Every structure is written in C-alpha cells, then in structure tokens.
C-alpha cells in the first residue's frame, strides 16, 4: 500500500466523531496514564486549540489529577472540560444606546452576514438599527449589505464603490442621530491583519466614531471563521491592538470545524466569544454557550 493510501485509510479511521473517540477512550482505560493524556492532547489539537494552549491545559489537568486524586476517566473528562470553560472570560457586552458597533475581520469570515443577523436580533428586541455600508472596496459589498437591510427591514447608509469608508460612517452617524437610532452597525471591508495601511484605515473608522458621536458607546467585534487555524490568534492580537476588540463572533460552527482556536485566543488575549454563527439564515446567530461549545469539542 502506498503512502497516500495508508494516510487516507488512517484519516478515514479517525474521522469518527470526536465524541465517540473520547467516549471509548475513557470507557476502556481503567486508569489515567500518559497515553490517556496524550490522546486527550490529540483531541484538543485536532480541534484547533493549538500546541501551546493544549500543553497548558494538559499540564493543569495533570496537577488536578494529582491534587484532587482523580481516578475515573469520567472525572478526568469533566475536569478538562471545566479547564477549558474557565479559560473564557466573562462576556461584558451590553448595548446601551446610542451605540456604534464596528464589525471587523479578515476576508470572507462572515462579517456582512453576521451584521444581517445582528440587526435582526436587535430589531426583534425593539431597537432601532442603522447599517453603515463601509465596505466600499469589495465588488458588490454594498449591494450585499443592502439586501440584508431589506430582509431585516432596517436602513442602510451607503456610498459608491471606491469611496471613503470613513465618510460612509460619518453619514451613518448623522443619520443615526437624526433618526434617533439606538444602534449603528458598521460593515467593514475584509482585510488581512498584516496589511498595515488597511489597519490604519480601520483605526480611522474608530476615531471617526469617537469624534463624531462622543455620546455613543463604541465597540468593535471581531468575526472569526471557525475553520481558521492558528492564524486566528495573530488576527485577534492585531485587530485588538488596532480597534480595541471587545469580543469575538465565531461563524460557520454549523460545519465540522470546532473553532478551538477561540480557546487559545481567550487564553492568550483574554477575549470572550459573544456570539456564534450557525448558518446562513437571519436567525442563525446564537449567544455563546461555553458548555455547549466544549461539549462539541468532545
């Protein structure tokens, strides 16, 4: 058998759900040994939690095993779950109108779609929402947001493709004041965190918000695609530096990716996950539930 075939076969074998794996692993091992820990390690890494955070979690687990005399695999699993849940900081995100929310992230993670869902959520709670189409770069981005605006029934402030994003936001703020909107949600063009000038452009949007609407509470939310690997940590770090991210929205959790990198981000940058995206429909946005999230990893 060739190398690829062997590889394919072994991959097929491990494709069984992680839950099953942990279950059987824990059921059949009567005592907790290094192998058990190593297999837990594999589960964490396969969920994109990353080498560093995984090692941290496992070493804390080791201490716990000793300190609390954990014997049964069931207890071990619970202990690990708790370790992970404890990594997430308490989300502090309440909307006190008037509010401006900047939605930021790299290309294609689901910013625009998430804005549609958020607008729907806020509107359902009786809030008046205005959307700012400040992605003036990507082809038809404004049209995309406008369609969401129509779907949800909220106003969208837009300019032409290629115009200055800050001036779109400026107009949205004026409109927000005039129409007494509670929340202005600003769509931004997808950008890689490594592009310095584009990050500067983003900072400018933040500054415009502060300057033009000092009464408003400004927050920036980072949208992360759950299929992203370790690069998401760099994304979160740099976006946080640029526009003071207050939380993460983890999208595409309806796929098979676990989004474990959010654990690494919480651990390294102390950023909470606020919402998760679980589909392309208008109500496919849920509040983050650490328990459910961790259960999905196992």
């Amino acid at each position, binding site marked *: 058998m060739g*190398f*690829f075939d*062997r*590889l*394919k076969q*072994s*991959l097929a074998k*491990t*494709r069984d759900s992680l839950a099953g794996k942990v279950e059987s692993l824990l059921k059949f091992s009567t005592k907790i040994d290094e192998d058990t820990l190593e297999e837990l390690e*594999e589960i964490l*890494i*396969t*969920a*994109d939690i*990353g*080498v560093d955070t995984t090692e941290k979690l496992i070493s804390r687990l080791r201490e716990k095993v000793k300190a609390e005399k954990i014997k049964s695999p069931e207890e071990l699993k619970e202990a690990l779950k708790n370790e992970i849940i404890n990594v997430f900081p308490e989300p502090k995100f309440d909307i006190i109108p008037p509010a401006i929310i900047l939605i930021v992230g*790299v*290309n*294609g*993670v*689901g910013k625009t779609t998430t804005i549609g869902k958020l607008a729907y959520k806020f509107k359902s709670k009786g809030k008046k929402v205005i959307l700012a189409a400040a992605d003036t*770069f*990507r*082809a*038809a*981005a404004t*049209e*995309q947001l*406008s*369609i*969401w605006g129509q779907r949800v029934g909220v106003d969208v402030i837009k300019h032409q*493709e290629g115009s200055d994003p800050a001036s779109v936001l400026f107009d949205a703020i004026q409109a927000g004041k005039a129409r007494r909107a509670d929340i202005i949600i600003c769509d931004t063009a997808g950008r*890689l*965190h*490594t*592009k*310095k*000038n584009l990050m500067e452009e983003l900072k400018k949007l933040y500054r415009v918000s502060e300057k033009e609407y000092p009464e408003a509470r400004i927050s920036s939310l980072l949208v992360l*695609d759950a*299929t*992203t*690997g*370790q*690069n*998401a940590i*760099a994304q979160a770090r*740099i976006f946080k530096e640029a526009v003071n991210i207050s939380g993460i929205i983890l999208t*595409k959790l*309806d*796929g*098979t*990716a*676990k989004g*474990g*990198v959010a654990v690494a981000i919480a651990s390294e940058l102390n950023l909470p996950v606020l919402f998760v995206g679980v589909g*392309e429909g208008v109500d496919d946005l849920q509040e983050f539930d650490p328990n459910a999230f961790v259960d999905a990893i196992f």
Partner: protein
Amino acid sequence: MAFEALTQKLEAVFKKLRGKGKLTEADVKQAMREVKLALLEADVNYKVVKDFIQRVTERAVGQEVMESLTPAQQVIKIVNDELTRLMGSKESRLNFSPSKVTVIMMVGLQGSGKTTTAGKLGLYLSKKGRRPLLVAADIYRPAAIKQLQVVGEKIGLPVFTMGEQNPVNISRAALEYASRHNNDVVIIDTAGRLHIDDELMQELINIKDAVNPDEILLVVDSMTGQDAVNVAEAFHNKLQLTGLILTKLDGDTRGGAALSIKAVTGCPIKFVGMGEKLTDLEPFYPERMASRILGMGDVLSLIEKATAAIDHNKARELEEKIRKEDFTLNDFLEQLKQVRKMGSLDQILNMIPGFSPQKLQGVEFNEKELVHIEAIINSMTKEERLNPSIINGSRRRRIAMGSGTSVQDVNRLLRQFEQTKKMMKQLSELEKGKKKGRFKLPFFNL
C-alpha cells in the same frame, strides 16, 4: 522568527552530537519532536504530521552527518525535501480541452475566495491568449452575481448570468453561449457550501454531470486549520477534484492546510492567491510552500523577484556600503525605489525568512509615503544625508518645512531608516550563518 526558532531548537538538540558520525534514532526522535510542534503550529493536520514524522525519522536515522552541514541543517533539509515531495514535486498546470470549450468549475466552502479567484483565473488565462467566459452560478449569497459582474467588468471579461435560476441550467446555458460567442474557456463560480450539506453537494454533482468539467478546482483558504482534511476529502469524494487553489496566502499564515489537503486528496495545488488585486494569482511552487510551512520564509520567490527587478550593479554597490556601514539616506532612497519594483512591500517582507510582519512595524511603506520620503530626503543637506545623527530638533523642523511634511513624518523616516539598517545587518548575519551561497539574495543578501 519561526525558522530561526526551529533551527535553534534543533541545534540545541544536536549540540552534543558534534563529532558523532551518524544520527542515531534517539537523536532524531528528539529533533522530530521540535519538527512535529512546528508543523502543528503551522496547522498541518495531526494525522498527517504523525505519518510524516514517522517517514522522516526512518530516512534520517543512520544518515551520515555531512561535513558541510550541521546536523540541524541536515535534518531540516530532509524535512524540507520530504515536505516538498509530499506537496507534489513539481508545479502542475491546468488541463485544457483539446477540441472543445474548456470548462473550469470553482468549488469550496463559504468565504474561501471563489468569486475573486474566478476573476483572477479569467484574467490570467486571457493574458495567456485565451477567451474566458465567467459564469455566475452562485444564486444563494446576496449580491454574489453582482460581485462577479463587477469583477468581470474590471478585467474586461464577459460574465454570463441568468438570474437566480437553477445553477445546473445556468451552467449548461453558459456552455452553449460560450460555443456561440467564441469563448474557449468557461469558468463557473459556484456558491460556497458546507461539505456536509448533502443537498448542495448534490447540486455540484449535477453541475458536473451536466457540463463535464476539465477542471474542478477546490478553492481553499490558506488559513484553514485542522478541519481542512475533512472538507477536502468530502469535496474530493463527491466530485473527484482535479486540483486546488490556495487563497489569502499574502497574510502571515504558515499554510499547513496545503500540506494536509494534498496528502489526503493527492490533488495538486495549481495556483495561489497572493492579494486582493485581480492580478494577484501565481502558480504554485511546492518547495516554496515547504519552506513557508517550516517558517523559513519564501526565500526562493524572493530571490526570483529580486533577480527580476534589481539592478545588479547597484545592488553590489549597496552590499559594499552596508558592509562598510556607510549606508546613507541617499542609498536608502535608492533602495526603496528598487524594492518597489519587486511588488508590494507587504508581499516582499512576508517572503523574508525569519521576519514576521508584526516584527517589522514601521518598515512598511506605501506609494504615497515613498513620495514623502523622497521629498524629505531631498530637503536634507548633503551632510545630513551622510550622517543622520546630526539631525536635531531644529533641523527636523527645517526639513519638514522644506518638504511640506510634518516633523512626525521626518521622525518616522529616520526611525525607518535605522530599522532598515538593522534589518539588513540581521539578514546579512543570517546569511553568513547559512554558509555562503546557500540562499543567494542578490539584494537583501549583504
């Protein structure tokens, strides 16, 4: 940093090895742990890493430690060779239909970059003398059709649309349209979908059956993590992919997904997306990707670009100056102009081994800044250019006035100059460490 980090770790592992003739299993095992961590950090799939490490271990144990290389470098070489081999030993090209219209189908998850890549591929092919037709078959995402139309207009290519009808019918009609309108390539932009969405996966199978594509290309975000293998396998099982395109490689992701996907599907990576501009599509070179995954930087690409863009005599002059440490602001300006010829600075900096863009804050420039820089340097006296340390506060104000910039701009330039100097020194040291001639950088190699 990563390459140096890995090299350093391996060197530490092999320190006690000096003088030994052969690599033993224990030596190699220790080293492989570091390699394994490096690969996992790069998002290579866990299983793929395991198999890979086993394979490399077998090859490395018992190897003579060659005199010219340190054991660490030798192991890296084996690792790099194996990675390259795994990723496909040579670059792979598109299949064209010999007699009729060539059909290319773009598939992938949501947000992977299909629409932009369809446009890039169209432009690439039209530059090669083909006459592509873009087909808008994403009827689900709001404004996806419009997006492709705008892209088509930008690059001057026709876009076939039929509103939000069944994508199978759209594809079939597009093929007919192409035959009638003398288009020899059809590029179908399908909607992003999850690999576990049976209904939408069936739609792709139906399109495939209807138009019998010559290429079915999976578009993959290069930042994808461990799940990449599940996604690629599912698409491959359903559609028998002919190749892959990796997108968003202009960021700082190590791109381990490339390796994982190649390993499980066996499909060649045909192109990589290197930026948001529609010209930012490049053929894929396996050995460069191997270096990148290991964190070695895309040295080869850099060399190629540098060779194409750099005036060799000037480069040699600069080398000489740096060595003698009389690199001045005049040279700095000259150098910036040369570097600009190689492409965007972001792209170039990403290719330099051991330099993550975050580390280089303050050494990036854009076109406008370059104009400023030129003005600032031109406003300096000869003496100031040769010896920037004399530029005190009042001189800074004068220079700012003279160049129509601000004192902050002048400060920033001076800082950038210092950093560049430092960076080049480091690079030149890095180069020395690698033994002469190993990675010859005509420009940065100083």
